[in-house]
């Protein structure tokens, strides 16, 4: 009886750990750029919400799955239905590991449809992706 209870606890802990890892692996936003790179966005605030300044990790991989390192990445955009941009000017502050970039200063201020443009500049090529989402 005691053993069974112990196993139940161990089992639920393992499930919780697996769940947490899985949660980390699911990106908040995803897109494929015009140059075929995959872009995954992991937000500090997940699910995304309005009126809180926060950061994102942006993971960029080339079409062959290799991390894209040392690229210049910019994020801009806004709400097309309201003719205005993002209320802040987010920018990449550093590369955390190969292909993983830290974007700081993200904040949204309205519920509704947002459209972001992610540009990835590397020597000789520029990838561009438009990401639309609803808040």
């Amino acid at each position, binding site marked *: 009886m005691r053993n069974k209870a112990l196993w139940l606890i161990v089992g639920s802990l393992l499930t919780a750990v697996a769940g947490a890892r899985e949660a980390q692996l699911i990106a908040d936003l995803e897109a494929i750029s015009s140059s075929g790179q995959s872009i995954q966005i992991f937000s500090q605030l997940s699910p995304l919400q309005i*009126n809180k300044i926060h950061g994102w990790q942006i993971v960029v991989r080339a079409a062959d799955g290799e991390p894209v390192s040392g690229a210049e990445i910019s994020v801009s955009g806004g709400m097309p239905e*309201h003719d205005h941009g993002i209320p*802040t*000017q987010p920018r990449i502050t550093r590369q955390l590991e190969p292909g993983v970039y830290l974007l700081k*200063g993200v*904040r949204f*201020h*309205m519920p*509704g449809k947002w459209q972001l443009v992610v540009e990835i500049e590397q020597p000789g090529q520029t990838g561009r992706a438009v990401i639309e989402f609803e808040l």
Partner: protein
Amino acid sequence: MIVRALATASLLAVLGLAFWNFYSPALPTQWTEPQLRLIQSLSLSQLPPLPPDPSNRVADSELAAEFGRALYFDTRLSGTGTVSCASCHQPGLMFSDGLALAVGVASGTRHTPSLVGLSYSPWFYWDGRKDSQWAQALAPLESRHEHASDRLQLSRLIAADSNYRQYYTQLFGTLPEIPLTPESATPASTAALLAAWQTLAASDQVQVSTVFANIGKALAAYQRKLMPGPGRFDDYADASIADAAIHKEQFLSSAETAGLYLFIGKAQCISCHNGPLFTNHEFHNTGVLAVNGQLPAMGRYDGVRIARQDPFNCLGVFSDADAADCLELRFARDENDLVGAHKTPTLRNIAATAPYMHGGQLATLSEVLEHYSEAPTSMLSHNEAKPLGLRPAELRQLQAFLLSLSAPLATPSKWLQAPQR
């Protein structure tokens, strides 16, 4: 024959007009899931705890709030001895003044905003020229039309009043020696006061500005106590978690409920007036006319540039924050679409804070609603709002809803009055 045709046409016209004015389709009986989420997002029960202000280490000190309260109601904080913070931000009017343009020592150029719940905002002033509540509190003290005092005189007041001196020492440590001459001085006002300021030693300038900054920090600690209380709308929103029924007459009348339906839907008010404080604390150009006799204001476009230059900002020497804490200032946007953009005010207790807009340009709520329904072309840059074409009946319903957002403050009454001296 002609008479009869005319009579029929007139009757139809009158009926049509009455229909346009008064008809209102019946609401559905249940909110949809997305509507419910929006309604609940507006409830005061969803208000998160007040975020810390790392730039002000006494922001959440009770002692600092007491010191701030005493300063807030003290007319000695003005050059004339007649104006206190409470002269314009009056507790009885939800910390506003009922005037189109503020009147301190002289007439000002902006409408006095309410202070209730303002501590949640990352930016202050209609154009966001200040990035903390303590830095905001400093500017009116030295402005010629508001308090018309200066940091040297104010520092001397703290030194001379034994009560203030005691508060100051407990909160900030030893009060420095305040120079006895000149009589008045500040780098942030007239040429004469600047010339006087330049006669002070650099070390004295830093010490006087530090005392001044600390006065602002105590005033901010006090203002962090000013919080809205829940009202009928909040009861309605909270009850709708259990039950998606639209009609709950015990909380909101049918006209108020119809107004809420428009507020989160067709009228799009919730785009900017979102969250439990009914504001996103952001800046928008909504085509409001310039204040009479003034050029159209540049709004946030100038405001963000002023904030970056402000010696009292989050990154400055008087701030208690690390640069890593100053995200809003470091990542503030400054593009052209901010020309003419002004801050979204809270709608809580909006009935008590007329007139409206950054220059008090619109006297009544019905004028405000007509303005948004029409969405006129902006004098500067572009109006973000689009025409809504609301019918008179709908405008009345929206107004009824807005008037339902009045409720007594959550702040204990001792904070709403001057301390006994």
